[in-house]
């Protein structure tokens, strides 16, 4: 039992954090909110160059042969930066699922995807695929996994409250993959959990910073015990969601028999953490947090969306109950 990350994993995390701190400031996220694609100009390429985009592919396919325990820290960073790029769909779900499926479809797509030349999308069957219009191949995950090439497919777009998340219903020629849909779904839910933790952490950090310097009634807002305890409660939720999300990543990587149950545990805790962090952040900021011009809402809305995506807290609670036999 060893919960510590290797030096390499930490270094990789720090490199991605530095990249995002420099290249993905709020202005860049805002651009993605307003442009045609919902994505950034050069970030996906920069991540491909670092090897992040294809890291979960076997080395034989040009990847880094890494697994969910390597990826989880990067997903937390993506959440922390509100990165509007398909790290979840492409790297956490698409690539390992294609690699698992093998055969002609992997032949056709995997190497391009690893190199960042083709983008993989993913959505729950009957739900929406985020960013399908900027993807080349979309995996629809239900009782089976259907792969739909975007060229020639019909896409119906809907607006998300997070304007960088372009929601699509996808319909087109499909190939059923020879891969485990339950595993693919858990990969997505697990990745969403890690992103929720990152989003929540940013919301907490930004709020702590704000209330420490905002004065009301002659003292910092952050010196009021009510504000302190709101923030302590958000910190508590995050503190306990983070190890659960990391443990879920390990369960997926290690093929743990309780994987589904423990991914659900992570998703519930992470969803509840980001929901509380968003409420707390807004309440402690007051009116300024309620404006479009102030950056807080970029994370708040990402949090709302990720908390509901790939099974919300209630859905995963039901799955845990079923696993416990109650």
């Amino acid at each position, binding site marked *: 039992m060893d919960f510590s990350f290797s030096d390499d994993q930490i270094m990789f995390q720090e490199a991605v954090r530095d990249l995002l701190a420099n290249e993905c400031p709020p202005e860049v996220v805002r651009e993605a909110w307003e442009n045609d694609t919902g994505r950034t100009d050069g970030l996906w390429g920069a991540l491909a160059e670092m090897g992040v985009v294809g890291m979960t592919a076997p080395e034989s396919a040009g990847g880094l042969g890494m697994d969910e325990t390597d990826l989880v820290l990067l997903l937390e960073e993506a959440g922390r930066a509100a990165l509007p790029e398909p790290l979840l769909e492409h790297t956490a779900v698409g690539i390992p699922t294609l690699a698992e499926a093998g055969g002609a479809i992997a032949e056709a797509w995997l190497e391009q995807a690893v190199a960042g030349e083709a983008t993989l999308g993913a959505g729950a069957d009957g739900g929406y695929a985020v960013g399908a219009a900027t993807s080349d191949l979309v995996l629809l995950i239900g009782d089976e996994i259907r792969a739909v090439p975007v060229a020639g497919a019909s896409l119906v777009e809907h607006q998300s409250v997070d304007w960088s998340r372009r929601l699509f219903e996808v319909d087109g020629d499909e190939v059923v993959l020879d891969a485990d849909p339950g595993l693919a779904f858990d990969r997505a839910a697990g990745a969403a959990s890690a992103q929720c933790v990152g989003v929540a952490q940013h919301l907490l950090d930004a709020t702590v910073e704000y209330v420490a310097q905002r004065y009301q*009634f002659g003292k910092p807002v952050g010196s009021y015990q009510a504000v302190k305890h709101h923030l302590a409660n958000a910190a508590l939720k995050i503190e306990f969601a983070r190890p659960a999300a990391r443990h879920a990543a390990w369960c997926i990587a290690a093929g743990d028999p309780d994987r589904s149950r423990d991914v659900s545990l992570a998703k519930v805790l992470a969803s509840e953490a980001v929901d509380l962090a968003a409420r707390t952040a807004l309440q402690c900021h007051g009116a300024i947090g*309620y404006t479009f011009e102030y950056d807080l809402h970029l994370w708040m809305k990402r949090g709302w969306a990720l908390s509901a995506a790939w099974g919300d807290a209630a859905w995963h609670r039901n799955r845990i109950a079923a696993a416990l036999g109650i």
Partner: protein
Amino acid sequence: MDLSFTPAEEEFRDEARTWLAENVPAEPLASMDTPDGFEEHRAWEHILFDAGWAVVSWPERFGGREASLVEWLIFEEEYWASGAPGRVSSNGVSLLAPTVFDFGTSEQQDRFLRPMARGDEIWAQGWSEPDAGSDLAGIKTKAQRDGEHFVIEGQKTWCSRGAFADWFFCLVRTDPDSERHAGLSYLLVPADTEGLEARAIGRLDGEPGFAELFFDGARVHERYLLGGEGEGWAVAMATTGSERGLNLRAPGRFMAAADRLVDLYKELADSRGPDLDRRDQVVSAWMGSQAYRWQTYATEARLRGGAPIGSEASFMKVLWSELDVELHATALRLLGRDGERADSSWMDGYVFALSGPIYAGTNEIQRNIISERVLGLPRR
């Protein structure tokens, strides 16, 4: 204690219901936080006023029908149940008008109340400043006397629909040497005053629902001073009482929303099967709206018995604002994959609800008031 409605009350309810059924627009109006939607809502206020429904509890000479408080609560139940539009004139009617009734001269009452009630003049609140949010006594905007005029310099913010409003009711510092609660005055300012500029700020949903006001030598005549010069704090606090209390958010609004939530649950359960975990949240929201209803009728009886609304308005502010958030959050959870969609009335309602625990005195401040003024705990 008789909690049945009297025949007269039932008749009033029927009349309101019938009129609303015949007059409420079939299609929802555009958002009142956009320029076009604002005017659509103004037109609806004209219709309401001309039929005598805009301000039911006001005296007839200002366009009301002198309805009792119970009748007003009944009207609100019917109004929201009918799916009628939001009230674009509510800041004036709910926040300013009680102050005009209490502190205005009869000239001011005659000048302002009817146009306000009809939506001919729509009012926005100019109280908050960048450094004075919940802590209103920190107001810095100055209004220096110059003969019969005040000359205003400074900045206001978070003025709801301030980019479209016709008038502002402002709290300004008329005594430049004063501090905190002293030396403030309550000024009514026409939006077209020279030296006043209103710039829109996007709200959480991206719509220009807020404005910042920049005052640069704006001159306002003293006839627009409400209450005495330097007595603005006391005058404003009377309004704050209304804001937190009965006038701002009647239970009918939340009862209607809770009923729609129950319907949403049924509709989704028909198509996707029941969801018992979320059902409990629906029950909670419904219970909250009912609890608020009975607490409000109980408060009405206390008020009728001569008790002041006082600090207990804080109970209501906390309840309705937190109920509103939970109610809409529950709906978004019920919607599942559609919960994140921006084009739903539930998301609009959620975003709107999130402002509730912040404005009109944050809920943290309300809890301070409850503990200190109602329970009597020591301030420090």
